[in-house]
């Protein structure tokens, strides 16, 4: 049998170079030691509440609900967290863990820049060095976040290899970790990569579903009928799903970036167009050609522009516990503008993929049904790109 460590069904594992093996083993041991440690957890809760601003709101989107005319819609407001996205949950956990392990330097990959900003923030807070790898294409799409990271004291390395997007940033961060391990923790930004990252990141993001569950019980005295979240690597989605996985009546739906459509090559919808493979330390589904070369994926959303999906999602898909749907650029941009106009909330273009699916399914659902959409981040960072998509240049 293959290595049972860090497996989700057939997915997951530790497909990395020998050079990194002791580093991930050390990380796993440290995590197992601290995850149930009361001091560690009270420190983390304190950071969540007093620094990141948790718990995040579960907001009833009244106008959107009325306008769509079906299910009641609640928004889980991860966009209101400090630094503007769910990424901070994972980063505070990992940075605290790294600190306990005696590491003094954090490295990270970033797509949209939200995970990079969160890592740079935690590094500043905890007095650690920080280097963020970002695809050169994304440094242009997300220039504001590049500036934020630098302002926070982090070095930003533009990655020019491959397609100059998120996958190349992950590869480069892995290469950097291989060359400098003793003082450096690789703060991976999603539920992907080799074990133990998919588990660690999921556990730190699980706060999202823990809160949704208790908040909705208080507001509606019931469980949600549907939970919607966008999926890049899948961290905000697994965080939103986790405490509902055993509640079989709750539909869990992950929204993937279809880019220009799943019937084109310009897509990043892994479940819709990928197949089983081994990459970036894990067995999972990947967009690839017949010879296993990783496909150059595309989405308007830098944070979803990744050719793979976390191994636990791959497993939830296999066993039919969660569904994964593709959402095109056009649908996401429409949803981005729709939420701004109906609720006065500008979501991240990533999160807008989840909003778009709610717009499709809510109208035909009964009024006593409840949909929770995780708004994984806020959309300020995307305004330039969306304006450009609509043919407007706001940076003259």
């Amino acid at each position: 049998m293959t290595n049972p460590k860090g497996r989700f069904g057939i997915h997951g594992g530790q497909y990395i170079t020998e050079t990194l093996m002791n580093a991930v083993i050390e990380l796993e041991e440290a995590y197992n030691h601290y995850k149930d440690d009361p001091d560690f957890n009270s420190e983390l809760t304190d950071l969540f509440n007093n620094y990141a601003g948790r718990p995040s709101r579960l907001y009833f989107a009244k106008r959107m609900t009325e306008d769509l005319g079906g299910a009641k819609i609640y928004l889980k407001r991860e966009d209101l967290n400090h630094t503007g996205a769910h990424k901070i949950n994972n980063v505070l956990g990992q940075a605290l863990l790294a600190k306990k392990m005696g590491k003094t330097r954090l490295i990270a990959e970033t797509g949209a820049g939200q995970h990079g900003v969160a890592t740079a923030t935690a590094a500043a807070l905890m007095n650690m060095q920080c280097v963020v790898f970002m695809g050169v294409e994304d440094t242009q799409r997300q220039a504001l976040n590049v500036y934020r990271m630098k302002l926070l004291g982090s070095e930003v390395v533009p990655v020019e290899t491959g397609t100059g997007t998120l996958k190349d940033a992950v590869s480069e961060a892995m290469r950097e970790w291989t060359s400098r391990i003793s003082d450096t923790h690789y703060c991976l930004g999603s539920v992907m990569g080799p074990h133990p990252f998919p588990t660690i990141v999921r556990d730190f993001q699980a706060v999202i579903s823990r809160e949704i569950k208790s908040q909705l019980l208080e507001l509606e005295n019931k469980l949600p009928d549907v939970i919607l979240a966008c999926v890049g690597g899948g961290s905000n989605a697994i965080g939103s799903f986790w405490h509902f996985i055993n509640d079989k009546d709750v539909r869990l739906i992950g929204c993937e970036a279809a880019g220009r459509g799943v019937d084109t090559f310009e897509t990043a919808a892994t479940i819709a167009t990928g197949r089983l493979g081994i990459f970036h330390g894990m067995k999972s589904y990947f967009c690839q050609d017949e010879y296993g070369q990783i496909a150059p994926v595309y989405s308007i959303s830098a944070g979803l522009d990744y050719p793979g999906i976390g191994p636990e999602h791959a497993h939830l898909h296999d066993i039919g516990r969660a569904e994964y749907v593709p959402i095109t650029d056009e649908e996401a941009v429409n949803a981005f503008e729709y939420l701004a106009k109906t609720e006065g909330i500008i979501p991240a273009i990533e999160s807008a993929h989840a909003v778009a699916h709610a717009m499709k399914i809510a109208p035909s659902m009964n009024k006593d049904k409840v949909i929770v959409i995780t708004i994984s981040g806020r959309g300020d960072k995307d305004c330039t790109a969306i304006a450009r998509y609509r043919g407007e240049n706001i940076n003259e």
Partner: protein
Amino acid sequence: MSNIHKAFENGKAFIPFITCGDPDINTTLETVRAAVEAGADLIELGIPFSDPTAEGPVIQAANLRALKGGITTDKIFSMVEDLRRDIKIPMVFMTYANVIFSYGTEKFISRAHEIGIDGLIIPDLPFEEKEEFLPACHKYDVDLISMIAPTSENRIAMIAREAEGFLYIVSSLGVTGTRSEIKTDLAKIIEAVRKNSKIPCAIGFGISTPEQAKKMAAISDGAIVGSAIIKILAKYGTQAPRYVGEYVKAMKEAVR
């Protein structure tokens, strides 16, 4: 058991790495032949991958050049068939797990055996995951070559005990690429291997000059060189085989 042990019966081994299809198949064919003629003991053939995470800039660029040139796994299989008509020394494939897995593990490994490949080096396949490919490797008599890194420490014995073919000792932290200095205490690592296994040890990563190769071979059973050869290919393109031949000759003389 494969033929890999034969590579270590001719003094210390010199093992060149060549990315298949960089810049084209014909150049690879000629480069391999030139290297063999110049005294190479084992040839490491790289099957390009789009995202080679263990590779530094030089080999990354070679992978991209080869893929741009339209190389595929099937074309490489045919190329090796051609080579095997006259090349008798052991040859191994170096590639990433997805290239093998995606082709179909059994299909890939049985075909590799058929065309005369002796072993596989898979940088993103650590000891813990080798069951992914080991059953097929054993079925078709292809050695699955393990790596030991400067960070392996307490893992050396475990890896060495189950090693087959030869052990690839990674000289330094980081990715492939030439280095001016190799600082790892490799003698100590090799001593730990010898306590657990009789398997030959070849050192790779960072070696480029005859002096370095000589030093590395003195404490092990051979030296592996990749980036330095790829640089010659990048510089001379289709004219490279001659220059690679000269380089291999100098290196083999140094390690002998």
